[in-house]
């Protein structure tokens, strides 16, 4: 699949589908250490994103990501809404009006998204948040692109690294978000936002295959 506006829109639809499939899992993860809404929030948001794309697909990949960003910001709420919203917004801005994305552009977008999340949420790696999935994902993507990987390879590397990063939150004491209220009791739980980040990246990798 080409990384045009339509291709990115397809990938986003794939992400929406994966979020819907994992809605209950994400709720359950959030119930254990938070307030049981993460899967519901993301699903509400991505359902609205698909509806927006059904209306009209913007002309550029950046335009598509901007639609994703503004829709998530106005539909998700909670912590994940502004965080994912900012990530997609920064990625969109970085891409400008490129018509098609190559591996380098994908890496730039991922990096911008990560920096957006970090700027908004002020979390470091090790705080047991989505940053712990996102950070290694971007690093792996950059490495793969530097080694000449194409878009599919770059996204696959990102998704694989995000999985590992998400898993790493199980052993952490949460220091940001709702799970931080639990202190030591947060240990032993997979962070729902880290899990959803890994799921989204997996969806994009699948779409790019």
């Amino acid at each position, binding site marked *: 699949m080409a990384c045009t506006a339509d291709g990115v829109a397809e990938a986003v639809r794939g992400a929406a589908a994966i979020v819907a499939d994992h809605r209950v899992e994400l709720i359950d993860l959030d119930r254990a250490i938070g*307030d049981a*809404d993460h899967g519901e929030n993301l699903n509400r948001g991505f359902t609205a994103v698909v509806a927006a794309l059904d209306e009209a697909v913007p002309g550029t990949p950046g335009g598509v990501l901007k639609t994703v960003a503004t829709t998530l910001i*106005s539909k998700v*709420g909670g912590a994940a809404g*502004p965080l994912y919203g900012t990530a997609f917004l920064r990625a969109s801005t970085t891409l400008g009006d490129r018509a098609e994305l190559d591996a380098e552009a994908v890496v730039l977008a991922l990096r911008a998204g990560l920096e957006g999340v970090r700027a908004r949420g002020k979390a470091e790696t090790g705080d047991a948040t989505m940053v712990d999935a996102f950070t290694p994902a971007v690093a792996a993507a950059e490495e793969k692109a530097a080694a000449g990987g194409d878009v599919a390879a770059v996204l696959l590397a990102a998704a694989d690294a995000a999985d590992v990063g998400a898993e790493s939150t199980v052993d952490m004491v949460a220091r940001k*978000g709702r799970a931080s*209220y639990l*202190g030591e009791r947060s240990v032993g739980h997979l962070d729902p936002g880290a899990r959803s980040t890994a799921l989204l990246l997996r969806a994009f990798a699948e779409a790019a295959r």
Partner: protein
Amino acid sequence: MKKIINDPATVVTESLRGLAAAHGDLVRVVEDPALVVRADAPVAGQVAVVSGGGSGHEPLHGGFVGPGMLDAAVPGAVFTSPTPDAVQAAVMATAGGAGTLLIVKNYTGDVLNFETAAELAAAEGLDVRSVVIDDDVAVADSTFTAGRRGVGGTVPLEKITGAAAARGDSLDDVEAVARKVIGQVRSIGVALSPPTVPHAGEPSFTLADDEIEFGIGIHGEPGRERIPAEPADALVARMVDAVAGDLPFAEGDDVLLFTNSMGGTPQIELYLAHGIAERLLAERGINVRRRLVGPYITSLEMQGISITLLKLDDELTELWDAPVNTPALRWGV
């Protein structure tokens, strides 16, 4: 899960319709984005006080909209902060030309969404300030956490801030009063049973028949510590110790004591706990000058209570006593 609902996705909207039907003289409800606005908004020349947050804590915040308290409340999905556009819409609907104060409970989601809303409103040329309430002594106020949560203290904060706006204070002064309240209010909560979030369909946590969550929040997030069930005297003493020891509240202090039901607590137990708290505070030489007892900031059907202490001075007492006319709090009118 058994609930009196039609569909988890429409719970908030349908409930707001009931609020509008019941209290149409006081509030106006907008469905999309969901807003509860004073029927007579905007009030020209008066600072607007706007709050909001996830639903499921009723009567907070929509039940506190009306003369003498909030100009608007922005209800998010259950336990989910509302989005910036909704907050911005509330700001626009209530702007009376004297500026707006946003009252934000300290949760990552609320802070981020309200922050963005404030930026959006500022871009429209409005004077919007925010205060963040973080009164929950159960959470360590350190870089190892997202900071203390905003809980019971939100209720007196909204009442007193609204009263300051109603008496015609400037935005600076309303904000100063709000910051004073935040500086001297502290709370602690306990849960005996969990809430069930409609879209989740299952209880948010499980507690054995002899366990209590101490230091519970208002979103079904587990508490700080799980303790064995104990008699009310011991439990309330533990709560009063935690709250009074934090500011700390000292002998001779005048306070407002707010004993809150988390939603599912029988009122007979709530008043029983309140009576114990009054006795314990008297023993410490702390003077309970004002009190509020009832389900005012809840967590769906969760059983449990919270205790909030606010240190009073003449100004805060006067503002607390000032008339208020909302669905959930009403006096002096």
